[in-house]
């Protein structure tokens, strides 16, 4: 146990953990939203994220950019990142809607048991990731270096770069926007109504199918943003990038309270940071093992997750 290493690196590990955690948090929102409304764990959400990572690379490739290109001017970078985000959101949202339409809606119409949904979800996830794997020969695709990490400020040995600040701020902003949407808007009220009791909501005039599609779309939207941030931070994507991160995101969602939006944020940030501490303390090979031990410990004490309450139960 390397305590001195952990104390020495505490600052840098915290910042890099927060940046990684922010991406995980955005990704986790998709899981938590769908579970909150449908009581369904959407395993295909990892491929929703994957499509976002690939499609924004495709668009950037149209501009002739690959991992060896020079960094363009600031105006061009802003434009490209925004364009990439739009494309990723569209691609992720479309994938999420397609999965809902093809994989889940027919089962819902037939009142299938929950196990059928689980199998279909895993099947959809495998189909999409393996197809991408065959197309890309399971090799990596590089990302153009649009944002060169530059130190914005330094505290001791902790370097905080522009990219890390961008990721964390963006995640917080998107989380706030989503929270306001769910809690204040009419559509958001519809989502909470369906989450609370689908049949009563239908009786009150809420279009259940439309709400469910909206929930998938929102999850896809968040995943698309997470996808672009992932591309810029990690610099490569692979056919199983969604799977690797998806396990962590799902863990984060459960950690924070599945069905709880703020729980997803807290769970994601906490997981990112604690994983890094575990890596610093025990060695990077314990990174994933540590996060699952943590999950089990927290669930033992608080079975509903840290923030507990779900989407349906409105705050007083």
């Amino acid at each position, binding site marked *: 146990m390397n305590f001195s290493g952990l104390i020495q690196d505490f600052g840098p590990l915290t910042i890099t953990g927060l940046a990684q955690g922010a991406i995980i948090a955005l990704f986790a929102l998709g899981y938590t939203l769908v579970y909150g409304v449908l009581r369904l764990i959407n395993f295909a959400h990892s491929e929703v994220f994957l499509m976002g990572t690939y499609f924004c690379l495709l668009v950037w490739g149209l501009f002739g950019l690959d991992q060896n290109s020079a960094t363009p001017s600031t105006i061009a970078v802003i434009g490209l990142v925004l364009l990439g985000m739009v494309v990723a959101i569209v691609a992720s949202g479309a994938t999420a809607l397609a999965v809902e339409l093809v994989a889940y809606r027919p089962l819902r119409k037939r009142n299938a048991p929950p196990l059928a949904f689980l199998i279909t979800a895993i099947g959809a996830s495998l189909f999409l990731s393996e197809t991408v794997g065959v197309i890309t020969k*399971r090799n990596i695709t590089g990302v153009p270096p649009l944002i060169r990490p530059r130190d914005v400020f330094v505290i001791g040995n902790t370097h905080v770069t522009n990219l890390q600040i961008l990721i964390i701020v963006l995640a917080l902003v998107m989380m706030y926007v989503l929270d306001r949407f769910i809690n204040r808007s009419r559509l958001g009220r519809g989502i909470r109504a369906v989450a609370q009791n689908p049949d009563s909501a239908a009786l009150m005039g809420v279009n259940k199918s439309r709400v469910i599609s909206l929930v998938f779309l929102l999850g896809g939207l968040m995943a698309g943003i997470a996808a672009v941030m992932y591309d810029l931070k990690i610099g490569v994507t692979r056919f199983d990038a969604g799977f690797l991160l998806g396990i962590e995101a799902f863990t984060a969602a459960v950690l924070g309270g599945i069905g709880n939006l703020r729980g997803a944020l807290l769970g994601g940030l906490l997981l990112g940071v604690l994983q890094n501490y575990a890596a610093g303390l025990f060695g*990077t090979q314990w990174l994933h093992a540590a996060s699952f031990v943590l999950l089990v410990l927290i669930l033992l004490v608080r079975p509903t997750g840290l923030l507990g309450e779900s989407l349906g139960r409105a705050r007083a």
Partner: protein
Amino acid sequence: MRQVLARAIGGVAVIGLIAGAAACNSDSSSDTTSGSNCGYKLAFFGALTGSAANLGVNIEQGFELAVQQYNTKKGSDCITVQKFDSQGDPAVAPGVARQLVTDKKILGVVGPPFSGESEAADPIFEAAGIPTITPSATRVSLAANGWKVFHRAVANDDAQGPAAANYIKDTLKATKVFVADDQSAYGAGLADVVKKTLGSAVVGTDKTEADGKQTDFSATVQKVVSSGATVMFYGGYYQNGGLIRKQLTAANWKGTLVGGDGMKDPGLAKAAGNAAAEGTIVTCPCSPPEKAGGTFVTDYKAKWNVDAGTYSDVAFDAANIYLAGLDAGNNTPEKMNTYLTTVDYKGIANEYKFTSTGELDPSLIKVWTFKFDASGVEIADQEVKTS
């Protein structure tokens, strides 16, 4: 009515099953070739897809070139190439190996290229008696299992590891080195040898997830930066190596990354970006491909439209060792295996003689270092003393 239908279908199924089995039987007994030594197969077993696929594909292409040239010389499609994709994954390899050994026409295997899949698949080849020549698996313990079918056409990590460590000490003159590996049979084995040779110069160690299983290395990078190391040695493959190099550069680390033959591929520059990868050193128990004899370099380029890659020349030689054995009348796996114990073959990349455990004769081993240039290609640097 339904009962009659069910019985009719059942009867047809049973007849079909018996006919199929009979057909299979007659197939395998009717292929005794009459002295022409044609109609046999040579197999490639290794990663054709997957995170380290480039290394497997380089070897497969060298192997296939040799067989194609042999067939052209014979004037017919004498020897068939059979490819088996293990994805470089020790979990996938055994299943694919079992598939390979059911084909009784296969005289020998070129591969497996990786140490992890060798550990998993070689027991199956040993049980079936199919000879293997690996052009690249360097883990030392592979030769210690008593396998009669195992043959290694290159030096192992007991030569490559000290070569890397000596280069770090003598050429890079580093006093603080960080050593990490990907916990694979190859990576951990190589890193352990390097750690032993470097001794007190090692200021920190870490382990990462297997190749392709991790993309965020921020914890490892942070450890390297705070250890003050000027050189990092990573035992692993090019994808993880490239990502680590990229993230080290992003963290403003000014040191040099050194790796083994698993990182010797342009794929490292693809993962890291050419600018970050420039200056990375990799060792290899192989000589530079452009030094290969004969017309290999131009033939390879003409057939595959790319330059010969890591170990393509060794795989070419491995295939030709089998073909020379076949020409000498060894047309069963057992005869081929016996032939390999006494073979002395002068190929285009090296001369090949195997010891009783399957290792390459120690007098024939050589280790080179390569450096990545600005265009993302590894260029020969120098030949290294191995002890």
